């Protein structure tokens, strides 16, 4: 339990998907213009991570490892992610049309979000780690904690950037730097700020 909690906190701050590994950068930069849409996308990413990562964990441990089929993991993981995104989309559309409308086109796009695939690939590496290591994922509970932490970390990152970009509308930025250029530099400065969480342990 303590281990899962520590993993959870670490994956939000020290091992943040955006600032430490640059995962999910494309949609992160494209969608972070307003806080409201960013929040929607962040919730959707967290939700999909929370389902796909434990499923991929079970597949890796109980199917791929015993059968020695490790080299098929890329195809299997992406197929699982694409299928689950499709199912989530249909379920959300059926049971909560209002949530579906607010997430809009982001849901199908999550299938090709690097953060989702990256979460599964990091999980694959972390299974092999020594269970004492703070980064290790030793059981299904850890997989859930890691998925939730990574998703929330992504959500925090995109909401912060959207807040800064909304404020920055009024700033006088040099012309060639406007838009994408200054956004990169802002993300770089945010990443520096997040570096002070490295070494955080519970």
């Amino acid at each position: 339990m303590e281990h899962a909690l520590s993993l959870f906190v670490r994956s939000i701050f020290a091992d943040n998907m955006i600032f430490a590994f640059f995962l999910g950068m494309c949609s992160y930069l494209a969608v972070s213009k307003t806080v409201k849409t960013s929040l929607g996308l962040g919730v959707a990413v967290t939700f999909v991570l929370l389902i796909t990562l434990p499923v991929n964990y079970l597949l890796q441990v109980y199917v791929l490892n015993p059968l020695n089929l490790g080299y098929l993991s890329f195809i299997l993981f992406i197929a699982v992610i694409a299928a689950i995104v499709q199912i989530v989309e249909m379920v959300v559309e059926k049971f909560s049309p209002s949530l579906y409308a607010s997430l809009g086109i982001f849901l199908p796009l999550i299938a090709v979000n690097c953060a989702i695939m990256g979460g599964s690939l990091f999980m694959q590496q972390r299974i092999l780690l020594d269970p004492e290591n703070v980064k290790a994922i030793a059981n299904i509970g850890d997989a859930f904690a890691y998925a939730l932490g990574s998703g929330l970390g992504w959500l925090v990152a995109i909401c912060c950037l959207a807040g800064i970009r909304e404020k920055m509308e009024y700033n006088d930025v040099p012309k060639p730097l406007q838009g994408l250029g200054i956004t990169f530099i802002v993300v770089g400065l945010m990443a520096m700020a997040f570096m002070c969480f490295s070494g955080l342990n519970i």
Partner: protein
Amino acid sequence: MALSQKTKETLLGPLNANNPVVVQVLGICSALAVTVQLKPALVMGVAVTIIVAMSNVIISLLRNTIPMRIRIIVQLVVVAALVTLVSEVLKAFAYDVAMQLSVYIGLIITNCILMGRLEAFAMTNKVWDSFLDGLGNGLGYAAILIIVAFFRELFGAGTLLGFRIIPESWYVANGGFYENCGMMMMPAMALIIVGGIIWAHRAINKEEK
């Protein structure tokens, strides 16, 4: 070489005016993470170029038989198969680089350049044009990777491709005046360098806009 105007544009456009990273904003994730040193950046650039070109060819060949509704899954499976091949080849012939690149090889699957080019070009164009488009975009991506990695390795470690560029005698430890910029090794600096490249690129190409 006798290249028609259109062919030339397809191949060379992505290198500068229509660069996938700094103009189309595709494939940023891996572009930043693998650029601490020049060697993994080179390998990554080559791997992505091969995969984009090959997947463009395959999807272009299949473009009339793929049902529209499931095209994303078909594209993902084609790309995933190619990435698996490249990953196995790298593990066999360049194990240390494969370990350095770790999950980012697998993440080529979700690299937006691939899906972007497949959707925007290969689904509607002939095989040869698609091949050139894939090659051009892969090279444009590799070019940015190499520029970023060049600065990060030179200023962060004083080496290029593992060879020492900044002489040992310049360092403070040996009585000199120079010290490596540790910040360059941090992820944050990659973002700021790309921001700088975008700034320079837009300042130079602004008359086209």
